[in-house]
């Protein structure tokens, strides 16, 4: 029996396979593990497609499952880079309009995962802040805080590097 939900889910994963691969690759940084993550996610969304709340929510839902999958993997394999708040450079005031050519993407990967996720979803995968709140199951205010502190930290990290 092919339900509408099932069709929507399969259509979404087929059409957005590259998008899904990219975000998983962001966390995994390895082709084979990324493919595994994508495959596991597809298995999960197919198995659970009946629990999809509404067909409009498919993007948010698939991303939530994919990100969960990646996070679980990172935790399990203990490959997670420990980056507590204290380890990060202090937040300092940065003059606006300052331009840098440093590798922001590398800096981004150094941030705590929760912050990375917000930045990646917002700027790269182009989700709205409220959608991100749903994907990450966190209150909207927390998402905003994470986005702003991530941006601040990115600037700071680049500034620091530049001075060395």
């Amino acid at each position, binding site marked *: 029996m092919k339900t509408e939900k099932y*069709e929507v889910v399969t*259509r979404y994963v087929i059409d957005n396979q590259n998008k899904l*691969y990219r975000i998983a690759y962001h966390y995994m940084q390895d082709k084979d593990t990324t493919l595994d993550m*994508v495959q596991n996610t597809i298995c999960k969304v197919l198995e659970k497609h009946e629990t999809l709340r509404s067909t409009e929510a498919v993007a948010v839902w698939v991303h939530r499952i994919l990100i969960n999958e990646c996070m679980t993997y990172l935790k399990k394999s203990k490959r997670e880079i420990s980056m507590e708040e204290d380890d990060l450079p202090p937040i300092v005031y940065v003059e606006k309009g300052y331009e840098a050519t440093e590798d922001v993407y590398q800096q981004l990967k150094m941030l705590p995962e929760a912050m990375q996720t917000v930045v990646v979803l917002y700027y790269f995968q182009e989700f709205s802040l409220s959608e991100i709140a749903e994907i990450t199951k966190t209150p909207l205010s927390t998402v905003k805080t994470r986005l702003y502190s991530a941006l601040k930290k990115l600037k700071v990290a680049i500034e620091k590097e530049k001075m060395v």
Partner: protein
Amino acid sequence: MKKIEQAKKQYNEVVIPKELNNLVLSTIKKYEKEKSKTSLSIYKKTGKYFLITAASVVACFTLLLNTSEAFAKEMEGLPIIGNIAKILTVRTYKEEKEGIKIEATIPGIEVASDSVVEEKVEEKLLDVNQVIQEVSDRYMNEAKQRAEEYKKAFLETGGTEEEWKEHEIEIKVDYEIMYQDETTVSFLFMGSENWASAYAVREYYNIDLKTGETITLSSRFGDGYEEWINEEIMSQMEAQMKQDSSATYWVSNPSWKGEKSEFDGFVSVTDQTKFYLNQSGNVVLVFEKYEVGPGSMGSPEFEIVPKS
């Protein structure tokens, strides 16, 4: 914010592996097949040992294109899909036991369910799968045996299990599609062992999908191709040696006007000469290492552009 734009660009630059699409489609297919049989979870992952179960392997073989509407549409839109058949991964296998890692991605020909090929042709195409299966099974078994013998010898001569693990012995079976259109397919089957390159296997398969027959040099160029292709190869060798003083070929063909080589070398192409079809659909002849030149030349290749 410019910096974020740069980061986004980098993020988007990640290379999408060409197997992703097949993986997505076959996972969906597998789910549909499994679901009609059982409600068990499709994936069983236990530690490092990961094997797609036999039932789902069979499911992969019979990838019917018209069961899901979304799926069928997708297949239509793909440029690589011929109207008869295509190459795809029919089996993947990963294993790690006693410090010996095996990773296999085995190709096969998939006949489209809506194609109108004769049964005879379809059978021939499926025979190719059988051959590939046998070749890869044989290779994996032999490689495993070699690795085990190596391990035994290593331990007997005073090596420890820990030291053995550091060797990171790996057996790999994989494939690469060289060329594909509606009626022809050319792919390379590769087997390798990271500790003994001498046993590496590289087999090219060139198949006419309309007839199911293997493409040979004579079916491609007609009888009597040897002479002009030999001339072509020798002129390419000569040109390369002229251009690059480190390039060396050994030639034993009687009409060779260049320097006589001290070793036996190139005489003539035959129907046994290996070749594949490149992106432009041209024949590229491949010689074994040491066959027509010193090891430093690697495994030389010559593209044969058909004479107009």
